[in-house]
């Protein structure tokens, strides 16, 4: 049972925010050569972990350290905590070696969330690059569970190569046809790839949405998001209906350590999800 209880009205977890709670690794799934998904359950008692799509946890490996990782599970499934991440740093490489039954510290959930409720009644376009798909996966779960609440829903997803693609069994080759459009592209193809080649932003111009009634959610490298915003605005999506998720170094997750500052924002607290016009003036500043 997490010491942090989510206040649904504010999305803020309460309790001692600095103390990790202990979970057990129930399942480790290798998604590709460097990306994996962890499924966690509370170490003591029943798991009850509520979060909002787009929020993140601070995950702690015993004696190694802590890293902010977005939550990638189904927001309706509160009996487990699911994270997909890449093994690229000290902490995530230690997680890559996790086996069923290992212990992991969890603090969270922290941060702002995607506007899934405000987006009801509208078309939805999700633009993701690489591991940026992971923080948007809870949105896809939510949409599929409330499909009638939305208009056209389009997932545009770019990966470096076909070997880097995530969740391919669910999204690319689902057992049943999905009720959303999925358009995938890779930077570099390999033998046998019959899909698109090119950057994900090039898919925006032909995405089957009504721009004047669409909400866009973007997650990926900043340069990708910059071009995606331009392409969306060219299509006529209003700037106040474009949302981005940003990443910075984080040590505390609750606005004390100062590491995640982005202009006046603390990404851990005021983000990671921002309405684009709120941070637009800082978005083009190098080394902000």
């Amino acid at each position, binding site marked *: 049972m997490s010491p942090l209880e989510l206040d649904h009205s504010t999305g803020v977890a309460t309790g001692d925010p600095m103390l990790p709670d202990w979970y057990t690794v129930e399942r480790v799934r290798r998604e590709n050569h460097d990306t994996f998904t962890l499924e966690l359950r509370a170490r003591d008692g029943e798991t009850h972990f509520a979060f909002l799509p787009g929020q993140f946890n601070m995950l702690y490996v015993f004696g190694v350290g802590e890293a902010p990782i977005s939550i990638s599970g189904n927001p309706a499934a509160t009996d487990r905590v699911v994270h997909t991440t890449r093994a690229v740093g000290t902490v995530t490489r230690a997680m890559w070696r996790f086996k069923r039954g290992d212990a992991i510290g969890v603090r969270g959930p922290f941060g702002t969330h995607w506007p899934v409720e405000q987006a009801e009644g509208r078309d939805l376009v999700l633009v993701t690059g690489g591991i940026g798909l992971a923080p948007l996966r809870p949105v896809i779960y939510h949409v599929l569970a409330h499909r009638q609440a939305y208009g056209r829903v389009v997932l545009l997803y770019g990966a470096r190569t076909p070997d880097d693609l995530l969740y391919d069994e669910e999204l690319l080759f689902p057992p049943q046809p999905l009720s959303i459009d999925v358009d995938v592209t890779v930077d570099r193809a390999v033998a046998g790839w019959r899909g698109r080649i090119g950057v994900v932003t090039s898919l925006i111009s032909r995405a089957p949405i009504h721009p004047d009634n669409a909400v866009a959610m973007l997650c990926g490298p900043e340069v990708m998001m910059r071009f995606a915003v331009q392409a969306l605005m060219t299509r006529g999506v209003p700037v106040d209906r474009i949302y981005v998720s940003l990443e910075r*170094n984080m040590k505390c997750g609750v606005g004390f350590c100062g590491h995640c500052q982005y202009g006046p924002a603390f990404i851990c607290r005021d983000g990671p999800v921002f309405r684009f016009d709120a941070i637009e003036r800082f978005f083009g500043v190098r080394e902000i």
Partner: protein
Amino acid sequence: MAKGSGKKGSAMRGIGPFGRPSRVIPKESLRNLLEVLRLRGYTLIGPTVRDQAIVYDEISSPQELPIGWTDRQGPGTYRLERREDDAFFGFVVGPQSWKKFFFPPAQRLFQISRDGKEIHTTPDPVQTRKRALIGVRPCELRALAIQDRVFTGGAYVDGSYRRLREDVFILAVNCGEPAATCFCASLDTGPQVTDGFDLAITEVIEGTRHEFIVHVGSELGARVLEAVPSREATDADSATEREIVQRATRRMSRALERSQLKELLYRNYESPRWDQVAARCLSCANCTMVCPTCFCSTVEDVTDLSGDHAERRRLWDSCFTMDFSYIVGGSVRASTRARYRHWLTHKLATWQDQFGVIGCVGCGRCITWCPVGIDLTEEVAALRGRESPDGGSGAIQENHHDRTES
């Protein structure tokens, strides 16, 4: 903790902000005052001389205060010198600030032990005790109020900070002699305290006269003062005090122009001035370590050799380090230009959006303790100068020198 009424400047009319008349005690009574605090269970913490600097540490009597010492400060220089009198508070601020008592430079947060499948997390207890801070300058009082907002004013509260701030008695000291690096008057953070103290004193030394004018800022302060022989302050005392504080304002040679400060910095992310200052800045982090409001920290996770015991420590950190902004792929602020820009913009602009106040109190420590003497008031003036119609940065160089001894 003292809660002042915030009636600004009322102390000057001989009435303390708590609505009580000011009192006067002879210098000998400072000992009694501190003794009363000790008897009430307070550990006394005050300025004392160590390693050729004035530091804050536990003291047992006024004799341990830096009696007869003053500090000569300038960009990149700090020297203690003998005074001609026996002033108890004849110096300004040293390299340390009071924040180290509430936001410790190194602090263990918790320990974890692993025994087979069992894992135990033990948060470190916060050691609290009643503490009396002796000789808190107006700028530092403001810095404490700013850190209170940072650590206890938001949706999350830093439990350790909040506990350490409980049971603190504040004896503030008004300033009579600024250092050459001070600029509190331009920020309205000094040289006289207005609220947030239990007792506030002004040291008066005139010929053979050596007394303290005392203002009461809280009920607790009133009770402490009652136990010490004192007399009511006269109009002449109030006039003397007014003169002392006004002299401090007049002698302040630096200023930070506050108007449109936030907008100025937000407009100037791409100013060439950042390259100019980056060419001098060593990115050494001294300014952030001496700053009484800087609050950034990092954590360190360690294990013992058995691997079954781990702990996490929180340590002061600085936005001037390369690691500070590290994410996969490299540091976001790799250049010194970006790091200085971040620090100054945070302190003066984004801080206002985050906490509703400027993050600078005009204490001048970052100027004094910068090894190459970078002066934030000069950097701000240079940014303004580049925007002025004549455009040159030469004209603004005179800016603060014009203000000396007006």
